[in-house]
């Protein structure tokens, strides 16, 4: 396992603990459960200077969610080669359930 794939796994693991957000990938489809690897890795791009994670909002308002996620994910980056990289959270979509009170 490379450092990037280890970091990706750690980031996704941390993101799953953040309520109201999830990785923007086919993780809940039946097809996703049939493949032997974690499709959520498709939501993470890691370059030398930027760590980008695409997420779907499961509730609103979004700013407190991304703020909480940012703090959690920053903690994951601490002590790695990407400690000083920019962390970018891209909210690609919002679930219909998020808009129902």
């Amino acid at each position, binding site marked *: 396992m490379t450092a990037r794939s280890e970091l990706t796994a750690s980031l996704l693991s941390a993101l799953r603990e953040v309520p109201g957000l999830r990785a*923007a*990938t*086919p*993780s*809940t*489809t039946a097809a*996703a459960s049939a493949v032997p690897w974690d499709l959520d890795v498709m939501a993470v791009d890691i370059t030398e200077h930027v760590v980008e994670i695409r997420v*779907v*909002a499961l509730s*609103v*308002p*979004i*700013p407190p969610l*991304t*703020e909480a996620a*940012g*703090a959690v*994910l*920053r903690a994951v980056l601490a002590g790695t080669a990407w*400690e*000083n990289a*920019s*962390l*970018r*959270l*891209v*909210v*690609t*979509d*919002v*679930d*219909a*359930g*998020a*808009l129902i009170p």
Partner: protein
Amino acid sequence: MTREQPQAPATRLVETVITPPVIAAVSAHAAAKVPGVVRLEPGLRGLAGSLTRIARQKIKGLEPAPTEGVRAFLEHDPPDVRVEIDLSLSGLDQAAATAQAVQRAVTRAVTEATGLTPSAVSVSILDIEIRGGLL
């Protein structure tokens, strides 16, 4: 559209990017709830975009949050959010008053949900239901 959360040192900011489908979904939900709005009008272009989005959301395992009838535009330099809404109104209400209510509701909803304030919310009334959409 991006916003930076200032709690971290300058070199370790968390950048949040809100994409147009998020703005459109929030706007559509807010507009549809305004009294006097019968329905949002997607048009042919909107329907095509909607089908694409629904298919993409199915892949993601999501329930599609409707965006039909709404177009959201995000500019990064300078930062700007604009929303365009096509809809049908009830003939029982004043069209201008209802359109203004939609503008207020959409602006408030987008700001509350995303932290971004639209600079413009354009409402196009494509149809008026004479019987208020009740018959």
